[in-house]
Structure formats: structure tokens, C-alpha cells
């Protein structure tokens, strides 16, 4: 599998289909994001191109500039065509970022790779394959999440008690937000004093994490980076997974599938775009 990824990457670079490949590189016994350029030494480095379930933050937001790493690259090199080795979740992140005007998908060529059954199980991923599969075999996702079922079987006071316990562990490290590929606002509500008091722990329950739950609700791609980043193991994904189901249920919408599919919060009740109709009416 990894060999065919390297071969295809080499082919793309040599045929000048892309100017650079963005992926993970083996380095000092670990992995790190790396831009393999089309120059001779870049191509020879492709032997170190790798994939990892431990580190999948190819689309993450840089702090404190709050720029997406890809949009930074695209702004600096507007004409560069970048090839990206992307798993299902990373591809969905790219689609959502393009939908929200953060990156230019025209300048990106996605090498969609499938996750293995073990990897899917590890992430409890419901969709461990990209929409456009290039390398690997598609395996079925994990359906059913015992955390969600446990939450839904609780009564309202029990749920509140559960979250009160979980959220009181929060140390306000902002790890979930910083790891989230969909969090790119320059002014983050989680930092505004009116919503979150400064200087006290735990943060206001449920305000602090509610902001994230709501803001990511319709764009969550289910990658699970927030839960992995959480140092105190708050089961954030339980709510995000359930919200992904709710979006299908409420608006027949699934994040990260097609760039043309507009977010339900930006359309009218009959799912027509708001902005277009307003301007044509004037």
C-alpha cells in the first residue's frame, strides 16, 4: 500500500502533474508533515513518504496566526499545484475548507487513500474511505457507537450529571479547537470574555464546549482529532458523531461530500441559496 502511494507520488511529480506533494515524512523515528517538491532531491526523498494513524493533521490550523496550513501555502505560492495524500477524513476536511473559501481546490490534487479495517476500528470511523478513492480497498465503516447509545439511553438529569462530570475536567487548553481542521475563525468565540470567563477553572458548564458543539455541528467531518487531542479525555466525539447523524436527519446534509452542497445554515428553509436570491431581487 505505502509502496503504491510512493510510486504514484513519484509519477505525479515526474510528469509535472503537481509541483509538490504534501504528506507525512518519516523523521527522527516519528512523522511530520512535509512538502516533497518536484526537484531532484524532493523526488529522492519520496522513499520517506509515509502514512500514520497517529498523526493525521495535514489540514490543521496554525496558531496563533489562525491560518490553515494549506491556505498559507496557497497564499504564498498561488500558482503551485499541490498533491495531497489524504485519508477519507482529510479529504472531507479539504472539501469543507474549499466550501468555506479557505482553500482553492483547483490547485489541489487529492490522492485519496483508504483506511484499513483496523484503522477504521481504532478511530471508530463511520466513513473510512474518501469520496474519490485512488489507492487501497474500501472497507466498511464502524456503525454504531456504544458511547452514543449509552448517552441516548440516559434520562435528561442523568445526561446533565454525566456532562457536568466530564466537562468539569476541562482545563481550557483549547486543544480540541486547535486540532480541529474546521476551526479557522480569526475571532474565536471561545476566547471572548462575554461567553467565557477568564481566570477560572473549569470553564462555565456547558457554555465553553457548547460553543464548539454548535459551531462545528454542521461542518463536523468526524475525524476525531478533538477527542484525541483532549488531555483529560472528554468524550467530545459522542456529541459530534450524533450531530453528524442529526444533520442528515434534519437537513439531509452530510459534511465533506461535495463542494457544491451548501451548508444548511447558509440556505433558506427550502434549501435555496440566500445570497443569490437577495441580489437578484434587488
Amino acid at each position, binding site marked *: 500500500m505505502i509502496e503504491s502511494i510512493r510510486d504514484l507520488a513519484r509519477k505525479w511529480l515526474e510528469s509535472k502533474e503537481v509541483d509538490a506533494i504534501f504528506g507525512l515524512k518519516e523523521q527522527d523515528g516519528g512523522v511530520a508533515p512535509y512538502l516533497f517538491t518536484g526537484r531532484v532531491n524532493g523526488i529522492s526523498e519520496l522513499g520517506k513518504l509515509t502514512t500514520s494513524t497517529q498523526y493525521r493533521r495535514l489540514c490543521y490550523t496554525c496558531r496563533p496566526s489562525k491560518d490553515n496550513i494549506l491556505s498559507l501555502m496557497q497564499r504564498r505560492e498561488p500558482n503551485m499545484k499541490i498533491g495531497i495524500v489524504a485519508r477519507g477524513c482529510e479529504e472531507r476536511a479539504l472539501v469543507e475548507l474549499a466550501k468555506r473559501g479557505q482553500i482553492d481546490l483547483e490547485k489541489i490534487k487529492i490522492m485519496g487513500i483508504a483506511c484499513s479495517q483496523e484503522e477504521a476500528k481504532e478511530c471508530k470511523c463511520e466513513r473510512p474511505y474518501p469520496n474519490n478513492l485512488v489507492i487501497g480497498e474500501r472497507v466498511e465503516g464502524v456503525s454504531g457507537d456504544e458511547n452514543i447509545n449509552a448517552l441516548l439511553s440516559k434520562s435528561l438529569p*442523568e445526561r*446533565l*450529571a454525566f456532562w457536568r462530570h466530564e466537562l468539569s475536567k476541562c482545563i481550557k487548553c483549547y486543544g480540541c479547537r486547535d486540532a480541529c481542521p474546521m476551526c479557522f475563525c480569526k475571532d474565536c468565540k471561545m476566547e471572548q470574555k462575554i461567553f467565557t470567563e477568564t481566570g477560572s477553572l473549569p470553564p462555565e458548564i456547558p*457554555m465553553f464546549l457548547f460553543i464548539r458543539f454548535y459551531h462545528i455541528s454542521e461542518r463536523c467531518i468526524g475525524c476525531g482529532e478533538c477527542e484525541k487531542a483532549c488531555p483529560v479525555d472528554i468524550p467530545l466525539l459522542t456529541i459530534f458523531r450524533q450531530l453528524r447523524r442529526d444533520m442528515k436527519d*434534519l437537513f439531509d446534509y452530510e459534511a465533506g461530500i461535495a463542494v457544491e452542497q451548501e451548508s444548511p*445554515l447558509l440556505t433558506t428553509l427550502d434549501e435555496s441559496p440566500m445570497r443569490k436570491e437577495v441580489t437578484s431581487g434587488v
Partner: protein
Amino acid sequence: MAEFEPKILAFCCNWCSYAGADLAGVSRLQYPPNIRIIRVMCSGRVEPEFVVKALSLRADGVLILGCHIGDCHYIYGNHRTKKRMAILERILGYLGIDPARVRLEWVSASEGARFAEVVRQFTEEIKKLGPNPLKEVRA
């Protein structure tokens, strides 16, 4: 012990519901004094965070009132509200706060009687639900 008197926060849109509340007032319609009104320019101005903030500041219920669909002064403001509140209700449910504490209703400027009726019904419902469980969290 005195009967539980809930505190209810109402966000009223400037163009319809606030005028509706005004009409209820000048028509001398009776409705429970449990609500406190905040005027917003559009129900679309009400962010779900406002509602959660109100609940965590010990409001027992939150009422969001806007123009009927199609009547919005800003054309699609109330479409946004409706979709947002649908998501908000789900999240509140998962967090263990009864979604019935938040209600979205459309009240036009000519519906003073309806405004009074909505407030009456909602107050009754909140009385049945009892005090906001988040009160203990902050105590």
C-alpha cells in the same frame, strides 16, 4: 412555600414580535409577568450562545419570537433562526437540558393576543418543568 415563579427571557424581533408585545400592552391584554423582553433587530440576531448564556445565568426558559416565515424584514433572517434553533435543541437535549425550555415562535405585529397567549402557555409549561437544573451547577 410560594409557588415557583419562573424567570423567562424573551428575545423579540424589532419589526414583528416587539410590536406585537407593544400591541398586547396597549390592548391591555393580561399575561404572566414572568418574562423579561430583550429587543433584537431580527430573530436571526439571536445566536444559540445567547440562549445557553441565558440558561447558565439562571433563566428558567428562553423564548425567541420573530416574524412569520416570509415576513422577515431582512428577508431570510428567520430562516436562519429556525435552522439554528433546531440544532440548538438537539445539542441541549444531549447535554441534559430539556429542549422544551427554549421555544421559537412566530408573532407578527398585529398579533398582540397571540403574543399574550404564547407567553401564557410557555410560562405554564416552564412552571411544570420546574427550576432550571443549571442553577445548582453554578451555586
